[in-house]
């Protein structure tokens, strides 16, 4: 088997509640990213985006990575890992530094000072930072600047979106991968990664929301003026909907999942109360009929509730008039029929379902909204590699060692 040289590829790994996915992309010399392939395995031991059964989860991660290696002929040595879970939260911090020099010119040192100050902002003692994302610089407290270096000002301020989560849960996710002899090069919040695959720079500037409806969680991220201003993770997803169907219609969980995927719909409106769906007999289950209206009622209640919680959170930003680009839905659970109508009922901005992605490479995955996180994570990885190029030789060894320690909170 021929394995390509490691420096040319980036691998994105998502340990999801329904499946584990590893996407392999090639970084080309012209600066483009080429999707080589995607390895998948049915997930187990993961609930609400968090590992609850370490060994089982590790086994499925191994299967997905092996599948990716076989499909792409790339030896996976390190990955970028998408993380999610309701323990993850974010806050905006504003920091300020004085320019004491005679000419008050802003230098790279001042920018570094702000980064350091932002890192010192308090977060809960048991949390670790996932991202510290720069939003904007401010010159003399008012004027916003994207590149302040070289400008003159008495003060330089900056706002950052600091995304953090429970350290032990993040460490567990990292360890589940690292123990397979796969280095974790970086972490990224899943909806932040998804947004990279979905939103253009203009859409980020105009004000957009990306809602990723996953199996275990509902994640969302809000962009305005090109910067992330809010993120959220609800520990509710398609898994909950399947359980609702299972309990409501008295179906085994696996059959309820099949019913959801094949017949699921979100609005009971217009359905005749006596309309039924016949579930055919197979070697597991007997033939049975269920009322379509009941199915839609159960699914609508759950989806409405979930989206309403997102809406209530976003209401607190009081920014609806400025989110002119609207809301983009993605994720596996966004493929359910009737989602657009429910979303339109709730949100006062345009709603779009993102069902297709444009990228170079293996296009068999271009119509898979359930892959939005790993596809976006590849783009995040590409950007990350551009900004933080890998060191060579002994420096590389030290870096890997430091990364491994810092990921488990020891360094």
């Amino acid at each position, binding site marked *: 088997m021929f394995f390509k040289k490691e420096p040319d590829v980036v691998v994105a790994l998502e340990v999801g509640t329904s499946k584990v996915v590893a996407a392999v992309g090639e970084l080309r010399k012209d600066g483009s990213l080429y999707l080589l392939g995607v390895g998948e395995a049915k997930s187990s031991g993961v*609930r609400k985006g968090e590992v*609850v059964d370490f060994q089982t989860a590790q086994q499925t991660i191994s299967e997905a990575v092996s599948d990716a290696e076989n499909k792409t002929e790339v030896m996976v040595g390190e990955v970028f890992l998408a993380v999610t879970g309701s323990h993850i939260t974010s806050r905006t911090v504003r920091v300020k530094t004085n320019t004491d020099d005679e000419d008050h010119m802003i230098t790279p040192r001042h920018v570094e000072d702000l980064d350091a100050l932002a890192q010192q902002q308090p977060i809960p003692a048991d949390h670790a930072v996932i991202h510290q994302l720069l939003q904007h610089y401010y010159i003399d407290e008012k004027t916003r600047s994207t590149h302040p270096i070289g400008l003159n000002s008495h003060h330089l301020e900056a706002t950052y979106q600091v995304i953090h989560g429970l350290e032990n849960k993040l460490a567990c996710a990292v360890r589940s991968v690292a123990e397979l002899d796969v280095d974790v090069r970086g972490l990224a919040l899943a909806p932040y990664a998804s947004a990279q695959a979905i939103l253009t720079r203009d859409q980020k500037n105009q004000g957009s929301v990306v809602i990723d409806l996953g199996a275990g969680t509902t994640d969302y991220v809000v962009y305005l003026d090109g910067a992330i201003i809010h993120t959220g993770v609800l*520990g509710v997803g398609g898994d909950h909907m399947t359980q609702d169907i299972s309990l*409501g*219609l008295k179906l085994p969980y696996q059959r309820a999942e099949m019913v959801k995927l094949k017949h699921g719909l979100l609005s009971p409106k217009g359905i005749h109360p006596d309309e039924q769906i016949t579930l055919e007999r197979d070697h597991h289950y007997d033939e049975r009929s*269920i009322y379509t209206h009941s199915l839609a009622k159960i699914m609508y*209640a759950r989806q409405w509730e979930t989206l309403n919680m997102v809406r209530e959170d976003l209401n607190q930003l009081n920014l609806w008039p400025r989110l002119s680009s609207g809301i983009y839905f993605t994720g596996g659970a966004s493929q359910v029929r009737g989602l657009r109508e429910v979303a339109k009922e709730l949100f006062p901005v345009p709603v779009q379902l993102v069902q297709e992605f444009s990228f170079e490479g293996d296009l068999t995955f271009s119509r898979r909204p359930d892959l939005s996180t790993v596809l976006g994570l590849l783009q995040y990885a590409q950007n990350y590699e551009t900004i933080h190029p890998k060191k060579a030789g002994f420096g590389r060894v030290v870096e890997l060692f430091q990364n491994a320690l810092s990921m488990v909170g020891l360094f």
Partner: protein
Amino acid sequence: MIEFSKTGPLAHNPFHTTLPLLIGVGQAGISVIDEIRLRHEWIPGRMYAVDTDLQAIRGSVATEKFLIGKERFYGMGSLGDRHEVTRAVQDQMDDLVEMFDAGDWALVVCGLGGTVGSAATPEIVNALKNRGIQIVVQAMLPFQFESQERQDAAREARARLEAEADLVFVTANDRLLGDCTPSDDLRELIHLHHQEVACSLVDFCRLLVEGGMIQLSLEDCQERVVALARGSRSTENTWMSHTSDRGENVERLIEDALDGIQFHDGRVWEKADSMIVGLVGGADLSMDRSQDILRTLRNRLPDGLDFLPGVLVDNRLEAELRLTLIATQSTAEFADTVVSELDEKSFTYPEDAETERLDDVNPESAKGIEEYNQAGIDHEEINLGEEVVSDADSIYEQDFLLPQHGTPQRYFSEQEELPLDRKADRGRFEKTDPTTINGQDLDQPTFQRMGMKIRL
């Protein structure tokens, strides 16, 4: 223009010069007094939290706390045993009453759906009354979808409270269902309800204690609040709403008050025949202005509604206006009147009444239903086989389930089990941290939490 000074001779003729003892019994009662303590600078005297649950007691911000049945329940709550709670309160009554040592009147707040609220409150009220303390009770009735046992307990407790206390405001949780949709968070609504009750009670107490430009007296209020007969199936006698505003927009203030959570379903306008109004403002609230506000409010209310205003100036409020509306029912309706004329014994429910269902009602009860059906109303229409009660009108119809002639019969409606009473099975999410938002366990199916019936 003649204006009355707050300190002038006509300004102060209060019901009592002392602040009331404020006693919260059970979780609902404690929740309301906590709201009072946390939200208001004006604290109506000493505040007491009384419960069997040590956690609820510890979590309360009341100044005095009393754990009922320490030896019986070990602070773990009463587990629904009303008789044990009654016995525990009786055993500890001396200690309890000793705690209420000062004051000549008390405001007791309780929920009658809970075990402690329904079992302990009448005992406490009885003991206070024996010490010559005047008592105002604010009691909250359980939802109609709660178990028959709870309804019976609430009814019995209410009857005892009305026999002992000087004034009993009874509000119904069902009013919160007025425009409640499956997506609404009922616990959040209950919380809002407690806030509204807390605000209303604070201003009501102040109007009784501090006097003001227009004085309220307990006697006037008593006349306007009916004490319904024992065994009555009627629900509440009071609907409360409270709002405050810093602006000059009186119309909006009134609009907000009339949009109170208990007024939403419109039942208040069908049942209430009196309106106790509390208006509290800052130093800029002149007699002229208060009259204008009251006049505007009066014009917004239905004709024929008896109007009882009280106005108070509080210099700390600056430009703020606080408006409290307490709509009351002052006369018993036909059904209640019939009941009151009958032998009380026929309405005494068994001590250990258990939930009975339509399928196994006794012949006498069945006869009552039959008679009722003959009168042209199908009990299936209002009973609750299809959906858990979500239609306030349907709920209310139960108030009048009495035969047209002869002895009133008990009607047993089919009840859904209250989700709170059910041990939650977390199923697939057993190994995960619960996802709880706004008091809702999101790992439980939405349709179950919202009380939706699913046709199989």
